[in-house]
């Protein structure tokens, strides 16, 4: 069955198409080039409408232990946001920490067809994947956390050879069914368990003697040599600490040219100038990012209002508990492997610090020149729920609107930001890069994020509304694998998305022999049960044809070096 999408203005940056009117043809869920003899069985007239690939969120906390703690801890988050069961949809609730079903529906209704959980603990991989399996509509995947786990730190401490380290990283990615690797406060989550309260880039871990610099560089190089498409996803040291811009600048240099992704960089871009000893480091950091082509970032924009911060960074989250609103929080040490911290937060435009955080995020978006290296995120829900993306897009695309909003924030923050002097407005083409093509390229999703032949037919169609917030809030149509799932911003069909993983090459026997001894001697889980098998994450009743289950997609990796 050939479907024709006729006459839309297509924004497909991966294929260099910038708003030209194009017809797109889809067969069996893929974009195709039809032959002259093909019959068209369905046609959508998209004249005047804007056509993009489905949105891809490369950093959104949609599943796993810490998000479930957030849900449990915050009934008041959900109580004005309960959604009844519909003809097609399950009941659910939640604003900042939505139920899994609602997260899936809301992403799709906003034109997104994929979102990636960036902080999966290997020990918690089963829960994370099950929650993602209960997140309908969208594709998903997860980045496994390394760098504060005892086994890795031990390898580093004893100067294990790099092949052994690469084997362990690859083993963990297989065991946890991961798409990428994230490091959170490198070594710091572990250091906190030894009562260290901060760990700067070149500060030694009290027990292992290694530094965050060692950890980042080892992970970065190892992933590159393993051929994993996404570079090491770095949540750096000193999150939220005034003056942390110095650490961030140093971290960029510390990579020594190795590809790295610096996540929610807004939270890592603070100086110490001014009366409040809190200032923007965005300009300096953006300049260094512009100079370093090996670096990509996502912003972690904050938006004003109530949300909850959920992070693997137990050390820094403990530090942030003094700002908890409402006054309750959870911090956990987890299995000599990781940790987490869940702290509810209310960002207020009349607070100097919060207002400046808002401005710093926007400065970062607008000062980094290359949209292929900056991705649109709020670090959901840490900066704001992902449902604020349309508003954020308008802030980036509409200078007048942005300056109106700027005039409403704390006057001290207005004075402390250069935001008002920045005239840049993002184009639809650039928005398509930072919300689709860029993340897909960075994650190695070869058939996602674009609309060329062979691409998965995840397509979003918008009315070309000059109010970009309204435009991106309510897509006219969303198609998943060529099927219409959303019309006028409402779900018309519920589907199950795929889980994306990568599987770098490693020697299983060589890796598991010492690991088995390690688990047997020190852990409370058997190594064999730590591993998550394929049949545990393939959704029963997913609706895919037998033998062609689309639930699990193994993305290609490069050759191991």
């Amino acid at each position, binding site marked *: 069955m050939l479907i024709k999408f006729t006459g839309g203005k297509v924004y497909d940056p991966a294929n260099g198409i910038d708003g030209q009117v194009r017809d797109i043809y889809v067969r069996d869920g893929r974009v195709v080039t039809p032959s002259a003899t093909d019959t068209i069985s369905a046609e959508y007239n998209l004249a005047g409408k804007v056509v993009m690939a489905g949105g891809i969120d490369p950093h959104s906390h949609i*599943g796993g*232990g810490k*998000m*479930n*703690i957030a*849900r*449990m*801890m915050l*009934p008041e988050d*959900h*109580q004005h946001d*309960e*959604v*009844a*069961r519909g003809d097609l949809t*399950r*009941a*659910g*609730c*939640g604003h900042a*920490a*939505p*139920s*899994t*079903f*609602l997260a899936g529906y809301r992403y799709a209704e906003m034109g997104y067809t994929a979102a990636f959980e960036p902080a999966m*603990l290997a*020990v*918690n991989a*089963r*829960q994370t994947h*099950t929650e993602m399996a*209960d997140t309908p509509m969208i594709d998903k995947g997860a980045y496994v956390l390394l760098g504060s786990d005892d086994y890795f730190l031990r390898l580093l401490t004893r100067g294990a050879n790099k092949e052994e380290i690469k084997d362990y990283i690859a083993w963990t990615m297989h065991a946890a069914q991961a798409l990428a690797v994230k490091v959170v406060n490198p070594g710091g989550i572990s250091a906190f*368990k*030894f*009562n260290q309260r901060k760990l700067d880039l070149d500060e030694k871990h009290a*027990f292992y003697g290694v530094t965050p610099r060692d950890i980042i560089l080892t992970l970065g190089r190892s992933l590159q040599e393993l051929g994993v498409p996404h570079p090491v996803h770095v949540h750096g040291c000193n999150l939220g600490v005034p003056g942390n811009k110095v650490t961030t600048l140093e971290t960029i240099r510390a990579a020594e040219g190795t590809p790295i992704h610096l996540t929610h960089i807004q939270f890592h871009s603070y100086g110490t100038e001014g009366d409040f000893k809190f200032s923007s480091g965005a300009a300096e950091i953006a300049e260094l990012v512009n100079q370093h082509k090996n670096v990509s970032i996502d912003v972690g924009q904050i938006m004003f209002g109530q949300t909850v911060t959920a992070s693997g960074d137990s050390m820094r989250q*403990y530090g942030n508990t003094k700002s*908890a609103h409402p006054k*309750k*929080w*959870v*911090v*956990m*040490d*987890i*299995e*000599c*492997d990781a940790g987490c911290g*869940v702290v509810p937060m209310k960002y207020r435009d009349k607070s100097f610090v919060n207002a400046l955080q808002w401005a710093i995020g926007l400065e970062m978006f607008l000062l980094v020149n290359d949209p292929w290296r900056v991705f649109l995120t709020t670090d959901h829900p840490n900066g704001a729920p992902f449902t604020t993306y349309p508003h954020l897009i308008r802030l980036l695309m509409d200078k007048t609107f942005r300056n109106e909003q700027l005039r409403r924030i704390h006057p001290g923050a207005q004075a402390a930001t250069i935001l008002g002097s920045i005239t840049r407005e993002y184009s639809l083409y650039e928005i398509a890069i930072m919300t689709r093509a860029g993340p897909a390229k960075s994650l190695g999703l070869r058939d996602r994020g674009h609309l060329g032949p062979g691409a998965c037919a995840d397509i979003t169609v918008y009315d070309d509304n000059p109010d970009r917030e309204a435009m991106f809030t309510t897509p006219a149509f969303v198609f998943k694998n060529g099927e219409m799932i959303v019309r006028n911003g409402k779900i018309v069909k519920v589907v199950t998305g795929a889980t994306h993983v990568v599987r770098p090459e490693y020697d299983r026997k060589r890796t598991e022999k010492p690991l088995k001894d390690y688990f047997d*001697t*020190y*852990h*409370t*889980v*058997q190594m*064999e*049960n730590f591993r998550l*098998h394929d049949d*545990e994450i393939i959704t029963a009743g997913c609706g895919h044809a037998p033998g062609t289950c689309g639930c699990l997609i193994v993305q290609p990796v490069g050759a191991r070096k």
Partner: protein
Amino acid sequence: MTAVQAGASPAPASASESFSNVTCVFCGLHCDDLEIERTGQSLQVTRNGCGKAKAGFERPLVKTEPRVGGQPVSLNEAVAAAAKIIRSSALPSFGGLGTDIDGMRAVMSLADKARGVVDHAMGEGYAQNMRVLQTRGWFMTTLTEVRNRADLLIFTTDVLKYHHRFFERVIHAPQTLFADGPVKRTIVLIGEGYDTGPISGPGVDEIVTISCASDRIGEVISALATLSKGAPLPAETIAGVPKPQLEDLKARCEKANYGVIIWIPSAFAFANADLTIHRICDFVKEMNVKQRFAGLTLGGSEGSTSAAAVAAWQSGYPLRVSFASGAPQFDPELYAIPRLLKSGETDALVWLSSLTPDLAAPQTSIPTIVIGTFDMKLDREPDVFIPVATPGIDARGQIMRVDGNVVLPLRDLHRASGLANSIAVLNAIEAAL
């Protein structure tokens, strides 16, 4: 063939089979190192099983048919009868919930469609913890951290009564990650009714007993907090504990590298027990200002940790959720099944106990559907009884350990019980609504 036809295989495919790394479902610790031998349809725990595990796994399988009104019926008839009861109910309750993660997902799906209330048999204990989480939060740890790190463990109840292998697996570790050999640990037992015999072992350096009534443990913890702030105690004894003993304990807490306080919410069988948990969690938080301390909550039997987790991610709320309005609503008092039964607000009870035969349905005269193990203990014949497979014995699955992060795989041990999978049963009931 419908999804709910009972497996017809009359005998296992192979006469015998050995299994290693088997996860046990008979307490919240979910030890995953069991070795089990199957001969025909009989199971024997050959290694690493405690008394509970042996008793659970080794129950002889008895062929049991579904029943409606006490009469044997086909599975499809039982499903139809169950659906009829739920359909005609104004507010059905889904209780027991002795199941794994996948089973709970099926319960939530059914309750959502049936506009019912969801509460676990251990709901009251769980709610005590949730009250603390939702008012103050907490600082927690997990078993592997305790095993390798904790040099001071303060117990507030006799954990061994709930988890027979707790000391063997978590405390008596001959080798640990951050010490040469065992961690040199001090074990403090606050409260009453401890069997101290099994506590000694590798690493246990000292055992300190502080006797008081369970419902006064909160006062002892408050006294510790007072002392650690440098404030004077209001009396020479607190909850019957002399001041020098409290001062000694305070000194031990301050000396600890990694102190852990352990409680089991359902063991606090007294009014306002959440306030005791509240004191424990606040004390842990206060200690973390200068040093490292953490809480550990245990119990979590009958799949309650899994049930609460699934309820939270699927509805947004932990247990005691109502779908009566179509949207999920949360109230740990209002939507407690014991209260709903007493007040007559619920008019049908669906009781699921697929892990053990012991989770008896409450006494009630309203129409009752029991979906349970083949040997389910029944105080009275329910309107509908559907025997189902036990995840981890007759079916695959996943279950969450009591410390809340580790999810373990459950195996099918191939005894070809012919029992229907509870997920298929629940799905079929949902489809028939």
